[in-house]
């Protein structure tokens, strides 16, 4: 009973809030805070049920799959919902001031539309993580994609509009590929439920083509190298809280569906060769994204390329988690890494927004001399960087450590090399920003003061990105609930 209400409120809470924020444009912030409270309560209720009673299933409408739609909460879903809730909460607090303190006249208009669009994004993410139905997942992808594109366009300038347009085309095409795959799966298996598919799906030409189409679409949405080209401009030109949401959460939605498809519904098609291809693309993403991040002139572009690289680590989960030895090690490592990256990237983009606000630009070579005014922001950036590089005791370290141990246990040493090189490159690009920020220039221009709440939310996320590593045992326990293999 409690679980039913949790399911309903996690999705319908933000959805109804989005509609209300549109009807009452001046009350957007209050509505978002109320939605944050409701989803937090619903999440607490759900996690208690999951810890006590295992996987929770809600049969929507009282029909069960295959006819109806099942919602399902296992450890993985609950973890993703927690990350979403934490980051959305931080973004809610941050945005309450961000749009009010912008320098131009358009900011009031932007704030009015930010709240409903943001709440739609939140509802879409919660619905996505709870769904156990590949067609319903398509609908959540539509909601997620449109909300993300509209939020990028909200920045309003020429560059933002261009990158939003490109993002829209990629996102729409990717959705269509996914839908085509779903249609083929339904034609072959007469069900779209993840659990039923796991029993029914047998390797065959139709399912291979279907899975290839769905995977292609999802890889474009998850911005895995070489389909990452739309991400840096879109994430760098969006307003700072939007960049945080996109990098921390939106791309992970597509990754989450890939996990559900390859490790659950179509586990019988997940061969070592397929897993190595995913891992190879991930490795390429790590090297390419990190190398590009080193040479970016602007801070937000650097952070965006760092996202391209960090997404690569997530895909190392494919070759490492499929094996019987140390599979769960890699599974929990990859997902802890995902949570760590989400918190660290939120902190970084919010900090980048603070620096833009204070200095009026984010050119890395001119960042010198701004530290003595916003030290909290710089500290937040440093802490988040710690987690991105993967230094102990941060959660980035915990995630990487588990992935490294898994690859050593399985003798797949080549991923170890990639991860070490990636960490060195991450250290280089994080230091590149910090060394600039710590140099004092005598004639530094007096920056704009930053509202305290904007600095403290960034710092809180950075602290989470580090501190989550100290309690990494808990998410690993949680992830055992409903893990897709025995």
């Amino acid at each position, binding site marked *: *009973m409690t679980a*039913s*209400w949790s*399911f*309903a409120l996690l999705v*319908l809470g933000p*959805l*109804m809030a*989005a*509609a*209300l924020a*549109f*009807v009452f*444009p001046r009350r957007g912030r209050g509505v978002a805070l109320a939605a944050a409270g409701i989803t937090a309560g619903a999440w607490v209720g759900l996690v208690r049920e999951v810890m006590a009673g295992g996987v929770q299933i*809600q049969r*929507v*409408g*009282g*029909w069960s799959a*295959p*006819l*109806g*739609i099942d*919602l399902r909460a296992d450890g993985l879903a609950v973890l993703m919902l927690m990350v979403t809730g934490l980051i959305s909460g931080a973004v809610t607090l941050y945005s309450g001031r961000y749009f009010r303190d912008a320098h131009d006249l358009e900011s009031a*208009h932007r704030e*009015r*539309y930010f709240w*409903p*669009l943001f709440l*739609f994004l939140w*509802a879409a993410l919660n*619905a996505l993580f709870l769904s156990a139905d590949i*067609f*319903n997942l398509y*609908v959540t992808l539509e*909601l997620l994609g*449109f*909300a993300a594109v*509209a939020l990028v*366009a*909200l920045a309003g300038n*020429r560059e933002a*509009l*261009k990158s939003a*347009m490109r993002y829209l085309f990629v996102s729409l095409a990717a959705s269509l590929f996914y839908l*085509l795959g779903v249609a*083929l799966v*339904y*034609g*072959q*298996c*007469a*069900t779209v439920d993840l659990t039923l598919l796991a029993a029914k799906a047998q390797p*065959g*030409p*139709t399912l*291979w*083509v*279907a899975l290839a*189409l769905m995977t292609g679409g999802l890889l474009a949405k998850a911005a895995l190298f070489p389909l990452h080209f739309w991400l840096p401009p879109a994430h760098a030109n969006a307003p700072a809280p939007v960049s945080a949401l996109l990098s921390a959460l939106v791309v992970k939605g597509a990754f989450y569906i890939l996990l559900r498809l390859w490790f659950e519904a179509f586990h019988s098609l997940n061969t070592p060769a397929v897993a190595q291809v995913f891992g190879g693309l991930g490795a390429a993403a790590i090297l390419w994204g990190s190398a590009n991040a080193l040479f970016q002139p602007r801070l937000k572009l650097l952070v965006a390329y760092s996202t391209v690289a960090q997404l690569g680590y997530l895909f190392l989960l494919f070759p490492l988690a499929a094996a019987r030895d140390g599979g769960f090690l890699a599974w929990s490592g990859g997902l802890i890494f995902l949570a760590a990256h989400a918190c660290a990237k939120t902190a970084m983009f919010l900090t980048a927004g603070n620096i833009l606000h204070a200095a009026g630009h984010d050119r890395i070579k001119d960042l010198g001399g701004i530290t003595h005014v916003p030290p909290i922001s710089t500290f937040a950036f440093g802490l988040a960087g710690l987690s991105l590089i993967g230094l102990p005791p941060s959660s980035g370290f915990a995630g990487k450590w588990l992935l490294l141990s898994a690859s050593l246990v399985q003798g797949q040493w080549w991923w170890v090399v990639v991860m070490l090189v990636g960490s060195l490159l991450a250290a280089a690009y994080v230091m590149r920003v910090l060394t600039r920020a710590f140099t004092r220039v005598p004639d530094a221009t007096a920056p704009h003061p930053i509202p305290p709440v904007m600095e403290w939310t960034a710092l809180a996320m950075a602290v989470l990105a580090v501190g989550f590593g100290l309690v990494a045992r808990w998410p690993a326990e949680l992830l055992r609930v409903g893990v897709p293999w025995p």
Partner: protein
Amino acid sequence: MDREIAMMSHVFDWILVLLVLALAWRSLNDCDLFRGVIQFIALGLLLAVAWLRLRAPDVALAEAAVGSGLTGALILSALVRMRQRERRGVPASASSDTSRTLQSGTSNRSRVLIGALSLALLTALGWAVFRFSAQSSGLAVESLAKLPESGVTNPVTAVLLNFRAYDTLLEIGVLLLAIVGVWALRRGERPGDDLRERPLLMSLLRLLLPVLVLAAGYLLWIGASAPGGAFQGGALLAGALVLGLLAGLAGRFLRRERLLRTGLTLGVLVFAAAGLLALWRTGGLLQYPAGQGGAWILVIEAAALISIGLTLGLLYLGGRPEEEK
């Protein structure tokens, strides 16, 4: 006799297939954008006929109304605006950049690449469909078996508003999101008021608009037992709204911002509230109390009809109606 009819429909189907392919090709490749759009509208109508031939009249109705009618109107109005901008010599913006790329066409190399990719996709799809292991009827048997419990007798409505109502709730959210996104982007342009000068057209509209609204209500009602429903009715309502906008009849209505926003969100809010109410009454999300399915569906669909009609109609403005204070 039966054989002749079967033969005839076979020939008809082949003509339909060839026409669809030819129109699709032409609408993509015509160097005159206007002609391309007209061919796209015709393509939508032919696709509706194709859906009829596949015995899916619900999809055919939606395809004709939304895929051909409203989408066609939206693309045409976008085209007109693009031309007006170019004539006024508005400095190059993101939108006219797109139009230039469209008109100049893509480079030869990318054409070859796209062609090769499409061919690969076609081959893979053909192979997949050709190797379909069994002729599966999907979930048709299950849904027909449960139809009496759904509260309606039209299986499509039963799937959309009962078996998979949760999908539909989120889809109506997508529609609302679409208009919020468009309003966030820019102010709309008021379509010309010059139709007022044409008395004949105005008297036609005076007849036509009430009929359209009535037909929308009829489609909603009949959806319980025959092809129809909130989406098809909403599309008609949207058509009526577009005509009213074109004739300059909706000016005063457009200034009532709070009313518009309430109407636009009504579908999502009523649907979601019904879901929660059902949860409270029966313990299951969107699980209607036994025997009351028909009534619940009608209320939800009525709210959805208003929102769908308003959303699709107001999209025609290409932006938010009034500058907000």
